[in-house]
């Protein structure tokens, strides 16, 4: 079960991510579980500690948040929701609401329409497209601890070795071609 999305929303997000980063002869966003990354981010506070800062890039342990950190991240994710302590310098629409609205506008049939129609719908809301594009890139090429980059397929595709601690690189690997 997704942590935040309904199953129908989740299916649309999977299709959106696959349109942004489609599989070719190498795995794409669906293979990398990019939608799970976004779902985990939006549902970060359904975990304890919240899934904001991973202790290690490849493990599922997370740093506890201070009350101030929690306030900032809840505001970012859930929005200010009319609560005075979250409206320090004005109201904020959270990512959850932006996804709920953005996914609804793309239509429940998004995954079934053709590529041109998908692109047309995505381009109809530039702000939402920029948000989901940023998150899709994070989910594809970020550390796997956050739910995306499954099987390290994002790093493998881009020739990036990712976290190499504790081995690091030898001097020859640094200084040679």
């Amino acid at each position, binding site marked *: 079960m997704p942590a935040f999305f309904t199953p129908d929303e989740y299916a649309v997000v999977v299709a959106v991510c696959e*349109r*942004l*980063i*489609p*599989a*070719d002869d*190498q795995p*794409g966003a669906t293979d990398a579980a990019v939608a799970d990354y976004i779902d985990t981010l939006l549902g970060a506070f359904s975990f304890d500690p919240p899934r*904001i*800062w*991973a*202790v*290690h*890039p490849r493990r599922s342990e997370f*740093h506890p948040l*201070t009350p*101030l*950190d929690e*306030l*900032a991240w809840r*505001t*970012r994710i859930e929005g200010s929701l009319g609560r005075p302590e979250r409206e*320090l*310098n004005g109201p*904020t629409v959270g990512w959850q609401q932006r996804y709920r609205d953005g996914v609804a506008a793309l239509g429940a049939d998004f995954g079934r329409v053709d590529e041109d129609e998908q*692109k047309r719908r995505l381009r109809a809301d530039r702000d939402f497209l920029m948000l989901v*594009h*940023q998150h*899709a*890139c*994070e989910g*594809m*090429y*970020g*550390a796997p*601890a*956050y739910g995306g980059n499954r099987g390290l397929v*994002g*790093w493998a*595709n*881009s*020739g*990036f*070795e*990712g*976290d*190499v*601690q*504790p*081995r*690091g*690189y*030898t*001097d020859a*690997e*640094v*200084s*040679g*071609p």
Partner: protein
Amino acid sequence: MIADQDFDAIVVGSGPGGSTVAEVLTAAGWSVLIFEKGRNHLIDLADPTRLLTDYSNDELKFISRHFLGPDPWLEPRTFRAGEDRGDREHIGEANNLPSTVGGGGVHADGKLPRFLAADFRMRSDLGPVDGAAVEDWPVDYDEMEPFYADAERIVGVAGDADANPFAAWRSGPYPMPPGAPMYGAVRSTASAEKLGLHPYPGPTGANSVPYDGRPACNNCGFCAYYGCPIHAKGDPVAPLQRALLTGRCELRPETFVSRVLVTNGRATGVEYVDRDGVTRTETATRAVVLAGGAVETPRLLLLSGFEHPLIGRHLMCHFQTMVMGIMLFRTHPHRGRAVTHMHDDHLIGDDASRAAAAAAGLPWLRGGMVEHCGPGAPVMESRTYPWGRRHKEMMRESPMRDHMWGFTMQGEDLPQPTNRIDLDPTVRDIRGFPAMRMTYRSHAMELAASRHYAPTLAAVLEDMGATQTMVATSPVPDGPYGGYLSPIPNSKHVVGTVRMGTDPSTSVLDPWGRFHDVPNLMVADSSGFVTSTGYGPTLTIVALAIRNARALASS
């Protein structure tokens, strides 16, 4: 926890300046209380021999999610490109340095050059510039040299004393030899030399061999913007550890100092907000030292009601000129210490630079240190390519990362009185205090220097075999807000807002970093800098902190 007592000194900020002061004062027998507004991810405060393992090689944690702070929602800053632009043009991040135990030392890739002798006497050597208050420093290089040498030993700097022909004299070698050169730098230094430039291994605060009980750097590549997971970097861990181990030092993270208390011309302590949001005070019997950086220190002074008209003025950030090339070969810029080589040629005037200055109507121009570097982060890279069918192919070809190499010139920025930090009239931080507002616009000198030197850097890349070169600057004066390149300078080398000098009418601090009219209140960060130079400020922050804290301890 130290038993209920008054401290000899209170230090505000645990970055390179504050940590160094804490080490010097505790070594002199003083008791010291350090306030730090950020979280502690560096050192076990119950057992300072133990270092924490919170840092990791994670682009999302450090770049996207503000792990080192400050969170721009909790501590917004505002920006405008001039007083003619209304109250503000931007709210959010503006030139943020980490807010965490260890401060800016944690995230830096640790390029730690000394300044040139000429940097301390720009007014005498080069003369005034219209619109800027170019002055000599109240200290010269010969006096600074032993403190630079101590700073290099305290932090642990790797370098080659003979490699830079423009460097000032030194009393001895670097504590460590240079680490492994990055492949891109092997290629770019060869081309730079061919074109008559003088590249050298950049003095680096990352251990090339085990040093001071910490291991050698293993080249993992997550250096600039990251905390070091194995503590091989010259962050302020060593001075903090030594201060805490004296038993005379207490460090309080997550505390925000909101007011410096002054009575009858003496600093007596501070008012602060603790982690539970409760306002408290602490007393210092001998001195208060401010080391929150060149943004937070003037902000605190203004919050405290200090009235010297120059507080916050002469804000300087390096003008960055980024010249990048796409190479036919793989540069793997994600391996190694982010930057291993630099050259200083563009800090040294010649006939061509004098002609360019004259053509721009300027008495002189000056660039800055040039870092040989490439972009190493794949999430950032992926956002530069179009989405859709070609996206993954672009990531495999990687023109914007694994085939890219180039230069960042950290250009000297002139001290303009109109560039300044003050308090935003309405925007507040989470604790209810006015946000810092930055008013900043580049001087014609920075733009002329950037235009003059960029073609030389592009020519080096062409000699390396670049198929395409591109030039970008930060700030982009009059550019749009919202992106990475905007009117807000990206350089983290922020200096000059509480300047030192001998004359109380043209400076806030005396030549020892203390307020002319409050002699037991000292500044130990880059706020006191008189000019920006073209070099990273950290080693000079540390060297000045050693000099001024020793003088304070013996006063």
